[in-house]
């Protein structure tokens, strides 16, 4: 029983990270109808920035905030420079754009910081949380930060005018322009926010998976699985999907014989395929009907 509880709690902790990645993916998907394959690499690069800042002696939380600001600006810049010109391009052109971005960021990180694995600090420590062996303080911190982030985002989208404008631009772009919303900037803003959210995921998971240019590969696949499970059109679904995938991954690794740590990743892929076959809209997604 203790093993079970332990695995569930650990699953919720990593699930929080998947939820962040899924949310970032869904935000961009909502804005431009494409999956950002480079989301993980962008998060990885941001994490390196924060690590570099700390190497230069900046305290953790200051580095955290500076990295958020950097990621936000970088996300906007990537949208303006690379994807705004591709707005009307076919799907494959966009996919090529994402893959190019992936390769460029991955290689630049390797070039700047090399491919050796680095330790990444945690501000929460790794002692047992509240004296319990079930979960560490860092895992509790991951969950806590994610919940704060989600509450903040909920408040932003539900109660601010700019949040309202962003939702309008994503749901009916033409009507949004007709009430005077600059939809193009709303997309850029979405990129900025998604990149910042991704950087939080990167900084929280780095103490667990260690810092290196390929650290986010697996995480992003789980993030995709979470987004698909929850429904690509639903930010709420993405978050729920993230936690579900985290728990599912841990339980499968523990209880299904032969899966263990090595076969956890194929489980995520199997999950993506099963959802797409059984319920393509995901748990909370809207079924999109197009009039022909």
């Amino acid at each position, binding site marked *: 029983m203790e093993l079970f509880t332990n695995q569930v709690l650990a699953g919720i902790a990593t699930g929080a990270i998947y939820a962040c990645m899924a949310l970032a993916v869904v935000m961009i998907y909502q804005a431009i109808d494409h999956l950002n394959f480079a989301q993980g690499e962008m998060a990885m690069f941001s994490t390196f920035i924060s690590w570099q800042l700390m190497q230069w002696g900046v305290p953790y939380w200051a580095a955290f905030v500076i990295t958020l600001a950097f990621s936000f600006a970088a996300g906007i810049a990537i949208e303006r420079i690379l994807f705004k010109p591709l707005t009307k391009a076919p799907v494959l052109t966009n996919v090529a754009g994402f893959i190019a971005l992936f390769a460029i960021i991955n290689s630049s990180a390797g070039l700047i910081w090399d491919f050796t694995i680095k330790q990444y600090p945690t501000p929460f420590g790794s002692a047992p949380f509240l004296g319990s062996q079930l979960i560490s303080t860092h895992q509790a911190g991951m969950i806590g930060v994610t919940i704060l982030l989600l509450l903040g985002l909920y408040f932003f989208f539900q109660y601010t005018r700019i949040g309202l404008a962003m939702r309008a631009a994503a749901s*009916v772009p033409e009507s949004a322009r007709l009430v005077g919303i600059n939809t193009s900037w709303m997309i850029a803003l979405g990129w900025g926010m998604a990149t910042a959210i991704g950087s939080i995921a990167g900084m929280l998971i780095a103490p667990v998976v260690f810092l290196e240019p390929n650290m986010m590969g697996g995480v992003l696949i789980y993030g995709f699985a979470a987004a698909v499970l929850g429904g690509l059109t639903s930010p709420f679904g993405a978050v729920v999907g993230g936690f579900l995938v985290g728990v599912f991954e841990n339980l499968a690794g523990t209880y299904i014989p032969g899966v263990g740590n090595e076969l956890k990743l194929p489980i995520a892929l199997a999950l993506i395929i099963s959802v797409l076959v059984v319920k393509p809209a995901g748990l909370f997604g809207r079924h999109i009907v197009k009039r022909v």
Partner: protein
Amino acid sequence: MTTLLNVKDLRAYYGQVQALHGLSFSLNEGSLVTLLGANGAGKTTTLRAICNMVRSTGGIEFDGKPLNNRSTESIVRFGIAHVPQGRGTFTTMTVEENLQLGAITRKDSAGIVSDIERMYAHFPVLKQRHTQQAGTLSGGEQQMLAVARALMLRPRLMLLDEPSFGLAPLVVRDLFGILGKINREDKVSILVVEQNAQLALELADQAYVIETGRIVMSGNAKDIANNEEIRKSYLGY
């Protein structure tokens, strides 16, 4: 009376296809003008060209200022509210959020709050449903919402694209009554595109008839309504 909207030699294109062939008309401040014509005549295209949602050439002046080459969202800031064909409802959002979106370019939050109340007074059904998802409203209610959303801009000119489309005759009567009231009491100039010529002519001061991208007839709405020949050959009633 001053001219609020002046359109000169407007030509519009969808890709290689030309939809408007040099169309000219004007609208006086405070008046209600209707554009009539059959399906595919170019009525919707004319409205879309005014808001720069379709490639066009020619002169479009609003209150003496040219609108050409401005983005759709910046044209809204001149005080032009466009209710597109199909109403453009934000279906996944609540009725109240739809109204707030109509005023998204305004800065006076107190004014916005009181305007929302004013809309609820104009359209009591919207007040009943203000927390409901707009997509769950009936067609008539959605059209009321679309008009209310446009009014939230405090527009000087409202462009309406077939407000009667898909609505029951009684609902259409209601709606046109409200449009007339808005025009008279709130001093909003209105340009309305309609297929329901009879009703539009009752409401309008001035009418233009479009056929295949050209104005073929214009004049006082009463005169056009009374001219049997025009009615039979262009308006089909």
